[in-house]
């Protein structure tokens, strides 16, 4: 075992479900104690059903310099695993042996204080992440250069744009020099150019021989950065092997479960059975082309139909379906809603419905966009909403017939237009 820098054996983490025996105030605690005294019989022992194993029987070894991607569905236990590895929470059983300093980056900008300036926050955040003052001072200029916020160093970060904030936060973390770096999904923030820069930095860290554990939903990042992939499913390691095989295993498991993007043109899909008890749920979101066939890729200017399939368990005298396109840092670019925005009212009975929104000329340029959605009774209530239904990658197209393709680096939006020389201008 001399080669392994992280060694995990029989790791498990159990959480208690529900609020049956949780006491958030002293009063609850006392009341519970009294109740126990008064009626011993009613005090049923904690059954196995009140607990859930977020992780169970997890064992693996990681050698020095390995870059390991951890993938799995939401709630599979990835974040719990990272939290145990970074000593934030304790395992219930099993153990982890780590040789060397572990730096964890579970969120960018942990401990940033909005009232402090960029400069002050670099020092504060660095210290929180485990850097010494000397180390921070040594990499200070690099951090500033990487973050591209030189001019605003002495401005409180509460006045920063969200992009600047994220850039500064990532820049600090990227200059950590631990033996083991644990990263959770932080690459999902920021604009495309910055994400690319972060990926580059991660690759650089890995090439320096440090051990990296990376959780991501970005399969592209996993296969390009990592040598090895761990697929976590239901609290267990379902696959451990080369990264690209892990990604394949993940994609095929997604097919079985009926979720994910493995089917062409499907942005979001979940089995209907799971949501029948809910008031309302989107079960499927797919992209179609002008003929109603699944759309394999989407380019700027294409005609695209977005088909939303959803389940309602209450009648909706008016029903609004909203689809939003957002940037990586959450900025909304486009919202399309049948009612009231587009004046296409729907009166729906309980059941499963599909409606399509046809966009004649898709107006967003090449880049990655995130889709959020909601189903509403207009002016009354949100039946349900989704912050992230999935990601679409728009491929570049020569929209203006000029031989020049438009990407988000030039302009996020494209629109029909033409130029002319003004008549009679002097």
């Amino acid at each position: 075992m001399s080669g392994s820098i992280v060694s995990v054996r029989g790791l498990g983490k159990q959480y208690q479900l529900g609020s049956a025996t949780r006491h958030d105030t002293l009063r609850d605690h006392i009341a519970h104690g009294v109740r126990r005294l008064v009626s011993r019989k009613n005090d049923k022992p904690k059954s196995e059903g009140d607990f859930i194993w977020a992780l169970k029987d997890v064992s693996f070894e990681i050698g020095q310099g390995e870059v390991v991607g951890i993938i799995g569905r939401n709630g599979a236990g990835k974040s719990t695993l990272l939290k145990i590895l970074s000593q934030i929470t304790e395992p219930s059983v099993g153990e982890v042996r780590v040789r060397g300093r572990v730096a964890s980056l579970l969120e960018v900008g942990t401990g940033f204080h909005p009232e402090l300036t960029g400069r002050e926050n670099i020092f504060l955040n660095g210290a929180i992440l485990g850097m010494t003052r000397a180390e921070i001072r040594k990499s200070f200029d690099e951090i500033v250069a990487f973050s591209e916020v030189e001019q605003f160093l002495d401005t409180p970060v509460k006045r920063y744009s969200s992009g600047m904030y994220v850039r500064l936060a990532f820049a600090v973390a990227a200059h950590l020099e631990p033996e083991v770096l644990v990263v959770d999904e932080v690459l999902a923030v920021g604009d495309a150019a910055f994400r690319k820069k972060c990926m580059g930095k991660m690759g650089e860290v890995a090439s320096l021989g440090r051990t990296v554990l990376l959780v991501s939903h970005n399969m592209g990042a996993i296969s390009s950065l990592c040598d090895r992939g761990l697929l976590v499913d239901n609290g267990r390691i379902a696959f451990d092997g080369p990264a690209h095989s892990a990604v394949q295993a993940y994609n095929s498991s997604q097919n079985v479960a009926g979720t994910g993007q493995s089917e062409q043109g499907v942005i979001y899909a979940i089995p209907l059975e799971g949501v029948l008890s809910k008031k309302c749920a989107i079960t499927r979101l797919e992209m179609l082309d002008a003929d109603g066939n699944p759309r394999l890729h989407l380019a700027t200017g294409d005609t695209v139909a977005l088909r939303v399939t959803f389940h309602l368990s209450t009648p909706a005298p008016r029903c609004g379906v909203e689809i939003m396109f957002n940037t990586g840092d959450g900025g909304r670019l486009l919202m399309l809603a049948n009612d009231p925005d587009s004046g296409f009212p729907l009166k729906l009975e309980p059941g499963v419905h599909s409606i399509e929104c046809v966009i004649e000329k898709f107006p967003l340029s090449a880049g990655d966009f995130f889709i959020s959605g909601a189903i509403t009774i207009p002016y009354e209530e949100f039946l349900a909403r989704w912050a992230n239904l999935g990601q679409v990658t728009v491929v570049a197209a020569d929209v203006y017939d000029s031989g020049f393709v438009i990407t988000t680096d030039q302009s996020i939006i494209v629109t029909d237009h033409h130029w002319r020389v003004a008549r009679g201008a002097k």
Partner: protein
Amino acid sequence: MPADESLPVERVIRAQRGLATVNFGELWRYRELFGFLAWRDILVRYKQTYLGVAWAVLQPFLTTVIFVLVFEQLGKFNSKGAPYAVMTFAGMLPWQFFANALSESSNSLVASSNMISKVYFPRLIIPASAVLSGLVDFLIGLVILFALMIFFGVKFHAQLLLLPLFLFVAFSAAFSAGVWLSALNVKYRDVKYIVPFFTRMGLYVSPVGFLSTLILDKFGPKIFFAYSLNPMVGVIDGFRWCVLGGSFEPYWPGVCASFAVIAILAVTGVVYFRSTERTFADVI
């Protein structure tokens, strides 16, 4: 296993059982973070206030003025010939430090819940740095105290050199109570409501506006000994003695009782804190 220079010692993460002890080596490694967090609290405290750091002066000063008006003018308390304002301010200073540090530190863990659920570092640093950041206000108050002493013509005594010792005890008192309350606050948010009540009561119960000898003379040493279980009694008496000199020498058994209470609170508080620390991220 051969010692590998490039790789530090192996660390084991597993479920801990029973009472936990303090890992001093680790605390030492994180000493800079301790300073940084206190520095952050100091920088942030008076941001976006109009009067800024003047609040550090105004709070104890105005309270003292009220005490002088109420107690000296109406109550005619015995201040053993010392100027009443100086006597009160010498008690107000450690009390304010204790009360502010206590309310900051008892709330500190919950206020840092984001950090606790995202990054590992020894959690003891959080309540400790909250107490440390209160020292700035204390030092500013100390300058006012010296100014008052000069204004009222109070001589500077040799005991003044012992002031840092009593300050350290006041620090320990705030830290040990803060450690207890901050850890309890993670689980029971009742603490948030108890602390302000506690500090407001404490101002009148502790010998801030009067001399503790009042209790000693009236009720005798037994009762006074019980009274000294309020740890701030010993601290305030000590402060007065340092500032006003020989005739204010405290009743030493009482001071010892106060200090013993602080020591017990500190040890039990740290053990309780360390033992519940591992569930902070899950509960907070």
